[in-house]
């Protein structure tokens, strides 16, 4: 019965791993549902915000905000990279980083410098390792991210844009298509390209209190914050979906492995029995 005991131990340990991956799969599934609800809760605000910005863009405003005015020459661009805090979620982060690096490469080939702002531990680790210029970072947002925790990092990037240090600002995020699919995307945040409302054409302006600059500045900041917040919330849903899938395939693989080992174990056991019988028979014949 050589090796039978080892095989049994191995099966046992794989079974334990399978239990863990199954549990993680179920946890991720329930968290994903909550994350999707949060995504839905954020949608009305994002929609309203977009329409307000659209109104500002279509009004005949006295003050044109820098966030709405494209800058012709680009010297330095900023990237906000949204990632997860924890691993074991398949290729989610890797795909997003690939998209980010590809986009960064096209800029750096034109001699443009790049600043990175990381959200989530994984992107901080990755961009730290490749030696990017990380100007701000935030991590440990948890499963229900709060807008308040993001304000600081966003402000660092917006301030840099205000001062003219950055000429473009991008956000790298995962889009939640469905449970099976999450696609990474690189979206331009600044200068913003609002949806102009054709019905409200250029012959009116708001009354501003206290004045147009203060109010529009304030609104634009909130607009960018809401976009980043939305990406972060969406990324949580992506993370949970990706983890659920990864853990499901891990459980399946563990099942396959156990079946194979069980087969090997049975064969070993059978071989041992056969050998024993033949020994006995041979012994009896000799007598």
């Amino acid at each position, binding site marked *: 019965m050589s090796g039978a005991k080892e095989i049994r131990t191995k099966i046992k340990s794989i079974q334990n791993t399978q239990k863990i991956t199954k549990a993680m799969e179920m946890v991720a599934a329930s968290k994903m549902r909550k994350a999707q609800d949060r995504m839905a809760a954020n949608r009305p605000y994002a929609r309203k*915000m977009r329409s*307000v910005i659209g109104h500002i863009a279509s009004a005949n405003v006295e003050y044109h905000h820098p966030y709405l005015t494209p800058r012709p020459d680009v010297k330095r661009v900023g990237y906000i990279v949204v990632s997860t805090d924890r691993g074991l979620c398949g290729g989610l982060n890797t795909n997003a980083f690939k998209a980010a690096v590809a986009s960064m490469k096209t800029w750096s080939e034109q001699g443009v410098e790049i600043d990175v702002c990381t959200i989530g531990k994984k992107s901080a680790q990755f961009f730290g390792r490749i*030696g990017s210029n990380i*100007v*701000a970072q935030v991590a440990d947002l948890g499963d229900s991210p709060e807008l308040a925790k993001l*304000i600081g990092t966003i402000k660092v990037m917006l301030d840099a844009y205000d001062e003219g240090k950055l000429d473009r600002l991008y956000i790298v995020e995962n889009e939640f298509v469905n449970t099976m699919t999450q696609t990474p995307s690189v979206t331009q945040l600044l200068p913003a390209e609002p949806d102009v409302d054709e019905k409200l054409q250029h012959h009116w302006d708001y009354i501003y209190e206290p004045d147009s600059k203060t109010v529009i500045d304030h609104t634009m900041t909130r607009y960018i914050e809401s976009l980043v917040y939305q990406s972060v919330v969406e990324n949580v849903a992506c993370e949970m979906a990706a983890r659920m899938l990864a853990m499901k395939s891990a459980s399946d693989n563990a099942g396959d492995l156990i079946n194979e080992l069980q087969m090997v174990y049975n064969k070993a056991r059978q071989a041992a029995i056969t050998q024993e019988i033949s020994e006995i028979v041979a012994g009896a014949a000799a007598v």
Partner: protein
Amino acid sequence: MATFQVDIVSAEAEIYSGEAEMVFASAEMGEVGIAPGHTPLMTRIKPGEVRVRTAEQSEDLSIYVSGGILEVQPYVVTILSDTALRVDEIDEAAAQKAKDEAEASLAGKSGEIDYSAVQAQLAEASAQLQLIKKLRK
């Protein structure tokens, strides 16, 4: 009486959406009351009560918002509420914290980080910060 659409939303939830006859809010420069057909207006609002007068109910609906933006279009009033109290100093502190975090990843023990590169970035980040401080003064 004429009514108009009122939407009160925050980044984390939709607070109120419906028809109203009148909306009252404490804008930055004083209390405002918005009736249907109001001229386009945009203002920041202070943390406090927003009252919505609807046709169905005799009493005004009272909603607390922690500051935000009030936008008036002739047939729709939108209040984009903040999720928490926001003060410039706190924002500044948060920005500082985000930079410190980048700095702290240096002190972290994960040996995978290219220390010399991060050190250079750090110098630049602190230089930027000093400039921001100067510009703020």
